[in-house]
């Protein structure tokens, strides 16, 4: 069982960047009627999303987030010993984007840099890995970057996914900290559901071709090519409401805590209907569940740090809170973490 426990390692700073351009989900277009839009937005809670222009990549959003965080925290970049970039919208198929970012951010050559290909569970997985690396005395600071330009992945003419996703990048600095106390993570996977959320073409199983880029019309009226993302919403929903509550309870039990001991529950911002249902199912008071999906949509692994920057910015100053975070989705992959945020530096949201 992938349960990991750490002592005195914590988050010392978080920043996030989003594109300036807003996309209003309630403006009717050739593909969605006003009525359809109202009904979908009512359920998902996603009113607005940020859309990156063609020349902005996930790595650019992460670069600006990291640059601002390191500058404002006055970090000696020579003390960053690891850079992790988590994304499914990397710059290139090779090399790894993290290595390009190491140079771009001016980090030393002694810094380890690597990418992780995970989606919605990626922040919690990444944090757990960063905490694990910090158990080594030789690792002083880990810079975790989560970036996604999911609006470039999904067709805006897809009934299931066309209104859900937004673009964002986040930077999190992790290091040893005596104030951080105990933390616990649970990491999980179930590849039997790999087809529930995927981009079928463009890899080596189904390489890009004339066929793969052709737009096709599906039974529900959706229009997309095989190079664009697909999502089986009902299967993902069943997975989420089955597995996520169990994982949250497992982490609470493992840490001998109850829902009352947690100040804030940070859910991956996928869809308000799913989050509300999970919270209600296990008795989490909704005033402990911040939302930012109405403004940014589903930003995959960026949604948790973006939610912290957007919704906890004002309450975190000189404050210590116990948080439980849970990310779930593509893979299928899901992870839950319980940790203390001990007065971390939270940078103001950056708009590019």
């Amino acid at each position, binding site marked *: 069982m992938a349960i990991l426990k750490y002592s005195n390692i914590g988050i010392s700073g978080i920043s996030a960047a989003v594109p300036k351009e807003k996309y209003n989900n309630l403006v009717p277009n050739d593909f969605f009627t006003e009525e359809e839009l109202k009904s979908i937005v009512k359920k998902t809670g996603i009113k607005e999303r940020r859309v990156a222009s063609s020349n902005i990549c996930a790595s650019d959003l992460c670069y600006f987030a990291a640059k601002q965080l390191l500058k404002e925290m006055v970090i000696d970049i020579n003390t960053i010993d690891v850079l992790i970039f988590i994304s499914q919208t990397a710059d290139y198929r090779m090399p790894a984007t993290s290595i390009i970012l190491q140079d771009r951010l001016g980090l030393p050559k002694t810094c380890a840099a690597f990418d992780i290909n995970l989606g919605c569970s990626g922040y919690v997985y990444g944090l757990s890995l960063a905490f694990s690396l910090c158990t080594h005395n030789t690792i002083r600071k880990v810079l975790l970057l989560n970036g996604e330009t999911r609006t470039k992945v999904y067709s805006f003419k897809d009934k*299931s996914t066309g209104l859900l996703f937004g673009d964002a990048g986040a930077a999190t600095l992790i290091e040893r900290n005596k104030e951080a106390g105990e933390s616990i993570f649970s990491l999980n996977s179930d590849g039997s559901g790999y087809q529930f959320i995927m981009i079928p073409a463009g890899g080596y199983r189904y390489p890009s071709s004339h066929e793969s880029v052709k737009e096709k019309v599906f039974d529900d009226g959706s229009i997309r090519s095989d190079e664009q993302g697909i999502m089986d919403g*009902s299967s993902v*929903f069943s997975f989420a409401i089955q597995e996520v509550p169990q994982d949250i309870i497992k982490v609470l039990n493992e840490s001998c805590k109850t829902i009352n001991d947690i100040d804030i529950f940070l859910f991956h911002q996928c869809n308000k*209907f799913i989050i509300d*249902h999970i919270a209600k199912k296990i008795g989490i008071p909704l005033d402990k569940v911040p939302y930012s999906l109405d403004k940014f949509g589903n930003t995959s692994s960026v949604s948790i740090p973006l939610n912290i920057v957007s919704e906890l910015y004002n309450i975190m100053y000189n404050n210590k809170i116990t948080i439980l975070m849970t990310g779930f989705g593509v893979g299928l992959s899901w992870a839950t973490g319980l940790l203390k945020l001990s007065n971390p530096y939270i940078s103001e949201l950056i708009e590019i």
Partner: protein
Amino acid sequence: MIDKIISILEEILERNHGTINPEDEFREYPEWDSLAYLSLIAKIDEDYHLIIPREDFQKIRTIEDLANYLEK
């Protein structure tokens, strides 16, 4: 059981009382869509603590079938 399912569906589909019958194939209602599906699965999970697997749900045609499934 059947009355409870009918009232759940009336609420989800925003249909007037008396317009849903046990032998109806609920997928045929013009209001039935993927969001209605999610609402129904969620409501059953809430009230009966049961998440109906998709493959089982696909075999359920009528409201009566659904009630029988839940009774089992």
